């Protein structure tokens, strides 16, 4: 009751006071609301993103093993980092990762840009087919990896069969062969993510004002020149951004490849993330793998920064 009465009095008082004052009197101040609204999100991100990251950095200087919680934790300085960087194994895994990232990006850029240019011609039903093309990128990468192992079966799989029909090379063992497995993961990633590159290219194409083409026409530019001098400069920032996002994702790639090849055969598809997971959750070298994680994080961050600088130069 009492609260109701106070509310009503406040209400009446508010009506006759000027706007700013009324606002301060009734309920919470804007400043309080702003903080009450923002704080929960910041706190969750601090607790579940920033705090763990700092903890990883701390652990990377220790010999902690998560499967032996009772063992005293020793500060061992940069020993973990020295061991990783001098062992040479990591370079092998980074090479496998680089092969994956570079080839997926090259193929997807070519296919994605090509598709976007075609769709932008505006044939009938293009919007329907664009949606169909999008479907693979919405699916769970781990489940995609699982069912592609079935498609890739050398004796019975449909992939091997189709290749055999067209190329007549017999059974193709995509995930069992050291030479083919790195391409098997490139193919599946391309199947999944070409639509993403295509979409961003399409966004770029749609942002080109028609008068630029009209001007090019007046200058008697041919098709190739129009593409080179009008289309490409406008699409390139979008394309490079798409490559940045996907490049970072593929550098971190884990789920799809784990289910498809689990890093094999041998270590032919052992991407850095997969190897990191092995060290952290199978060998339980927690301190060592924390240092590994920091190194990978710094590498992504560094490469990303260099790339963003290049991107900004293209934009300006």
């Amino acid at each position, binding site marked *: 009751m009492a609260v109701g009465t106070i509310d009503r009095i406040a209400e009446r008082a508010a009506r006759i006071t000027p706007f700013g004052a009324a606002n301060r009197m009734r309920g919470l101040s804007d400043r309080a609301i702003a903080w009450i609204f923002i704080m929960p999100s910041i706190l969750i991100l601090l607790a579940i993103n920033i705090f763990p990251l700092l903890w990883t950095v701390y652990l990377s200087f220790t010999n902690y093993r998560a499967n032996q919680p009772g063992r005293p934790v020793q500060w061992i300085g940069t020993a973990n980092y020295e061991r990783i960087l001098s062992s040479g194994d990591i370079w092998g895994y980074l090479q496998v990762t680089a092969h994956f990232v570079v080839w997926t990006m090259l193929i997807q850029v070519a296919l994605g840009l090509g598709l976007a240019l075609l769709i*932008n011609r*505006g044939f009938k039903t293009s919007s329907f087919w664009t949606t169909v093309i999008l479907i693979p990128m919405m699916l769970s990468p*781990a489940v995609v990896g699982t069912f592609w192992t*079935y498609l890739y079966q050398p004796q*019975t799989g449909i992939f091997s069969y189709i290749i055999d029909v067209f190329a007549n090379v017999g059974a193709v063992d995509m995930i069992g062969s050291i030479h083919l497995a790195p391409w098997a993961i490139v193919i599946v990633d391309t199947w999944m993510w070409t639509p993403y590159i295509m979409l961003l290219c399409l966004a770029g194409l749609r942002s080109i004002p028609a008068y630029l083409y009209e001007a090019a026409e007046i200058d008697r530019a041919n098709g190739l020149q129009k593409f080179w001098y009008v289309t490409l400069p406008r699409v390139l920032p979008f394309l490079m951004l798409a490559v940045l996002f996907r490049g970072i994702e593929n550098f971190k790639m884990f789920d799809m490849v784990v289910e498809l090849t689990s890093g094999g055969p041998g270590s032919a598809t052992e991407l850095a993330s997969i190897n990191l997971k092995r060290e952290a959750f199978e060998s339980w070298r927690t301190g060592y793998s924390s240092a590994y994680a920091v190194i990978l994080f710094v590498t992504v961050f560094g490469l990303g920064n260099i790339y963003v600088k290049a991107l900004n130069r293209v934009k300006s």
Partner: protein
Amino acid sequence: MSAASTAYSVGEASPRVKWIAGILVIAYALVALIPLVWIFLTGFKSPPDSIAYPPEVLFTPTLEGYVNLFTTRSRQTPEYINSLGPPQSWYDALVRERNMVITGPSRFIDRYQNSVIIGFGSTFLAVFLGTLAAYGFSRFKVPLKDDLMFFILSTRMMPPIAVAIPIFLMYRQLGLSDTALGLILLYTAVNLSLSVWLLKGFIDEIPREYEEAALVDGYTRLQAFVKVVLPQMRAGIAATAIFCLIFSWNEYAFALLLTSGEAQTAPPFIPLIIGEGGLDWPAVAAGTTLFLLPVVIFTVLLRNQLLRGITFGAVRK
């Protein structure tokens, strides 16, 4: 910004060019569909049909894969099966043809249920908290606003495995390992950055004049937010929610590392079906179909909202 947009900037192409472009795009789409169609069909094959060579396009459909997906079975001698009396149901009969008896339900339904609970739980939290934070950032003078917004975005660049180690330790301490709540909190945190950024974009587009009019009419800030701003954000909230839901639905790495029994979601479980049934591809295909189908339907129905989220960041001013 949508693929269905008809504002073509490249001048009108000639009918022949359009025709060729159409053929090429449709050819790509059809090839890209083969794996999905194939998995869908495999779900209705019998195990021998699923490993026939050359692969069979025409076959007698059976629900064996789905029965195997939902049940656990044990192999028995024909004499034992004959001694059981007539089968109780059509799926009993189907299993007995392979000299097996059903011993109970499989864990697929539990895993699917976990995926639904964790997906919707984390989506609700991420969108709820994201809406509040986005409103705060959009409408009030927050000190260090740009820095905080960048901080929120930067949490998205972190590799999951790098934070997985301490989160694993933290959850073990707090008793959150292998709980739905643990995964819900984690997915909320991952989705929050996208949610805040997307929703701030939507709120920025709503004119401030509406709220100011409401304030003059005697509404409090909170009332103005709930009664004036929220109803206008419906489309934005829906688009954001779809994105969060799809991420949580598809997530694998954290689910694999942080759950084992109780709270496991479907993505780490589906690959295990292969081991359980001894290369039972129709069951794997059935599980895959049931898991992917909602996403495919979502994608087709809500494509315009999705496109806004996908191209977000690249097309923002």
